[in-house]
């Protein structure tokens, strides 16, 4: 499978099955295209002789043949056979999302957790539940050494003493059980102070700081319960936090909606405010919400991603480089095929735990009765539902099987598939279109960097 595209001054050819990326001249671009749509080398060359020099075309043909013989172009799809027995593969649990607070001190308009409550009551996770969750994880993690605990909410700083107790408990098991815990935490920043900052900088592998960008954008979507904006409250705290952390292992993380489609300005605003690790992502919301991203927004949003890609390169030139999460790509040492086939691992490797100890496939399914998988006392009891997640892979989804981006997104988000189509094996088309553009931009930036080096 080939995907080829032109961005700015560059022709890029992606060979999907080998994972190879090629930057090519116009002649090669056209020849590869004709071969891809079914022409033989001879037919394609004959056709292009009207446009290009024959001798040069022969050179291109030789280069293409060489790459094909090396398995770097028009590589066969040998992966589908790998997934034949996918449902029967042995799996372990390696990550938990602990909902330590089903409560929040902000009232964000787009919150999928309904202001922290997840369609239920306001609640804080007691330590006994967190402890059982850690024990459950260790017991079901097999030989996996690296384990992840994400403190999530609602707002996890509303239950921070419990977070600390949980970290200490997990750390106390590491040596004996030969495990290494990586803790992460997502916060809106309202309760950040010197004490919890010091603790997080010591123990949290990554911290996600929620901020949407420009003040007027942030304040509109992320008000306090009394209706005031929260930007002025949280920004100084985030800046102090990041400085204390040495600009490492964090993200300022925003959401853009139909109301700020010029989101590249929000990303650049965050960069201008001194943040170097930035993630700003599209809202996922039902069509009837007035802030939802709509199909007719896609052209504009794709232009925004390209604009951002160019701006990011300009910032780097001006020594104001920043990292944009969705433009990160590792071409040489990226994930293996097994990872790319299986995706996020929700329901299998990754589970969410509610304050009362219920287990769900991920944070986005919390509160939807049919997705209740079990609890921290009894473990997984709804194995039928878990099997539905076990079977999720890019070849199980018709739309993904044919898509060139399948090894970059791994079949997308199961919660999005379910929420839009009631089917874990469906795809959320708006998300797919934006993901594809992001991958194109990420590869373009990488190609530019590599060719300059």
């Amino acid at each position: 499978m080939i995907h080829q595209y032109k961005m700015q001054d560059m022709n890029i050819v992606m060979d999907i099955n080998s994972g190879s990326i090629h930057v090519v001249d116009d002649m090669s671009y056209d020849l590869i295209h004709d071969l891809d749509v079914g022409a033989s080398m001879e037919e394609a060359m004959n056709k292009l002789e009207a446009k290009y020099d024959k001798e040069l075309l022969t050179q291109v043909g030789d280069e293409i043949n060489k790459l094909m013989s090396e398995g770097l172009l028009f590589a066969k799809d040998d992966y589908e056979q790998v997934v034949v027995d996918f449902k029967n593969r042995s799996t372990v649990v390696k990550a938990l999302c602990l909902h330590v607070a089903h409560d929040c001190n902000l009232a964000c308009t787009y919150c999928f957790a309904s202001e922290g409550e997840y369609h239920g009551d306001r609640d804080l996770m007691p330590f006994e539940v967190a402890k059982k969750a850690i024990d459950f994880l260790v017991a079901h993690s097999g030989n996996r050494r690296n384990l992840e605990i994400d403190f999530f909410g609602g707002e996890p700083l509303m239950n921070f003493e419990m977070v600390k107790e949980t970290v200490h408990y997990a750390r106390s098991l590491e040596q004996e059980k030969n495990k290494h815990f990586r803790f992460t935490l997502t916060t809106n920043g309202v309760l950040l102070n010197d004490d919890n900052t010091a603790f997080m900088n010591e123990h949290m592998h990554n911290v996600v700081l929620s901020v949407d960008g420009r003040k007027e954008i942030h304040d509109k979507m992320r008000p306090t319960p009394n209706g005031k904006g929260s930007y002025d409250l949280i920004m100084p705290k985030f800046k102090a936090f990041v400085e204390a952390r040495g600009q490492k292992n964090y993200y300022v993380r925003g959401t853009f909606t139909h109301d700020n489609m010029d989101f590249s300005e929000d990303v650049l605003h965050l960069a201008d405010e001194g943040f170097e690790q930035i993630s700003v992502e599209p809202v996922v919301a039902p069509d009837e919400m007035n802030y939802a991203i709509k199909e007719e927004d896609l052209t504009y949003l794709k232009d925004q991603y390209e604009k951002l890609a160019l701006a990011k390169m300009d910032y780097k030139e001006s020594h104001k480089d920043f990292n944009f999460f969705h433009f990160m790509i590792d071409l040489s040492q990226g994930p293996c095929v097994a990872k790319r086939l299986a995706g996020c691992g929700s329901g299998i490797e990754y589970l969410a735990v509610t304050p009362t100890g219920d287990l769900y496939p991920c944070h986005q399914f919390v509160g939807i009765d049919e997705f209740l998988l079990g609890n921290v006392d009894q473990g997984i009891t709804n194995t039928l539902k878990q099997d539905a997640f076990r079977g999720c892979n890019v070849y199980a989804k018709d739309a993904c099987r044919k898509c060139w981006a399948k090894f970059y997104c791994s079949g997308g988000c199961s919660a999005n598939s379910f929420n839009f189509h009631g089917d874990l094996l469906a795809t959320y088309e708006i998300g797919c279109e934006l993901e594809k553009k992001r991958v194109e931009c990420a590869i373009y930036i990488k190609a530019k960097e590599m060719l300059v080096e």
Partner: protein
Amino acid sequence: MKHIKTLNATVLKETLKHGGCGECQTSCQSACKTSCTVGNQSCENEKMR
């Protein structure tokens, strides 16, 4: 080559041999929480290096 510059000579199929150890980060734990982005992650398997 004069006409085609290959950015990465790593063949994805090779990862079938040693891949799948699962020590890598869960994709949703890093920042996203609403999307699935795997291609940007790094492999943590020493055998793959």
